């Protein structure tokens, strides 16, 4: 067996060496002498004596900290009320748009049946959905790329990023719920991950470079960016398939 290297000695010193290394150490005088010197040098590195902290210290930390904390219910309620307001507004807009599309469609149908024999194309509605979702994924991808490169400590520089995140957050929630109801776990999962990032960025009152770095690290934004790109590629494929199928559905 070869003589022990520094790496093996580190492992032995911290009690993580293998039995083969331990056996070698006992048998080899040269390694044994080297290890004794190695051990002496590490034993000599002693910590600073940590001053004892009694129960009063905990009280002191808590007293200093308490005023900085916002109770969870209030914070969640505030966020929820904002989210609810946004959701209601978006839902109302969707309802109005749907009603307009429905009425317009009926009117158009009457007008169109008199002149041509073209049937309503079911692929068209799907194409609209795919295009809208692709647009959302496009914007999300741009926002994530921006987040990857954001490095300013001045919260004012990050205002635009936060505004975009807020804007995307409301629509993202609707798409996530829709994807979940439609039985698309891949899409729902990716949008769920994205929502976490959007919420973190949108709701930080003082977004600094350190906060952004924390979000990037904690929430693995690179991974989410990859997921979004995959879904966007999938959306583009669906869109082109839908376009190809258009000719076939005209009666």
């Amino acid at each position, binding site marked *: 067996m070869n003589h022990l290297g520094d790496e093996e000695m*580190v492992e032995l010193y911290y009690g993580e060496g293998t039995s083969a290394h331990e056996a070698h150490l006992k048998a080899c005088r040269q390694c044994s002498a080297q290890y004794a010197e190695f051990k002496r040098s590490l034993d*000599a590195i002693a910590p600073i004596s940590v*001053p004892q902290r009694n129960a009063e210290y*905990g009280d002191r930390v808590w007293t200093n900290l308490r005023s900085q*904390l916002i109770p*969870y219910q209030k914070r969640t309620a505030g966020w929820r009320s904002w989210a609810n307001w946004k959701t209601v507004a978006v839902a109302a807009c969707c309802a109005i748009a749907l009603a307009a599309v429905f009425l317009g469609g009926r009117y158009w149908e009457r007008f169109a049946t008199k002149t041509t024999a073209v049937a309503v194309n079911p692929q068209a509605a799907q194409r609209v959905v795919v295009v809208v979702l692709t647009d959302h994924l496009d914007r999300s991808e741009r926002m994530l790329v921006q987040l990857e490169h954001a490095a300013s400590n001045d919260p004012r520089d990050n205002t635009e990023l936060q505004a975009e995140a807020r804007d995307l957050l409301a629509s993202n929630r609707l798409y996530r719920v829709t994807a979940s109801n439609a039985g698309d776990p891949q899409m729902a999962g990716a949008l769920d991950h994205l929502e976490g990032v959007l919420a973190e960025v949108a709701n930080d009152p003082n977004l600094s470079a350190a906060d952004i770095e924390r979000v990037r690290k904690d929430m693995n934004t690179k991974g989410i960016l990859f997921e979004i790109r995959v879904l966007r590629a999938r959306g583009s494929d669906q869109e082109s398939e839908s376009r190809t199928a258009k000719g076939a559905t005209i009666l």
Partner: protein
Amino acid sequence: MQESDHSIVQAVLAGNKDAYGALVRAHSATVFRVALRIIGDEADAEDVVQEAFLRGYQRLESYQGRSTFGTWIYRIAVNCALNRVGQAGIKAEFRHGEESDPQDKTVQLAAREADPERVLLSGEISAAQGLAMQRLTPTEKSAFVLRHLEDRSMSEIAEILEIAPNAAKQAVFRAVQKLRRELTPLRGNA
């Protein structure tokens, strides 16, 4: 303790802000100890304690109870300390020998006579150790402190520093190598 910590976390998340005080009181001494060992400065270590508990509170919703609250907040504290170490002007203090006097910060070498020349030399060693520790990268320094002083296993260090176990092992190894390279010549004179 784990169960009660978990129920306290639930109470905090339900809106009882004051319940968090119990967690702060229970774990602040441990958090202070590791912060001081990494940073080496008492005032900065106290700042890290505040910062760690504040961050912990803000991220409490992400605490899933897989580890104890103590381990979770310890991990946050190490990361806060790591960030501090990265900042300029923080000096780590490590002393040589088995005992040290916190009052006058003199260093005692084991089983030797404390003649003036030796005291001077031991002071040099102590200063050299401080400098050697400062020359380690934040990850190497934290990994070394966790392994050597906090007696954490390599897998725990990897989890705390959010790196692969092999990377944790390599960080400790590099730290040991660097410290020995810088300190062995001095120790030969002692």
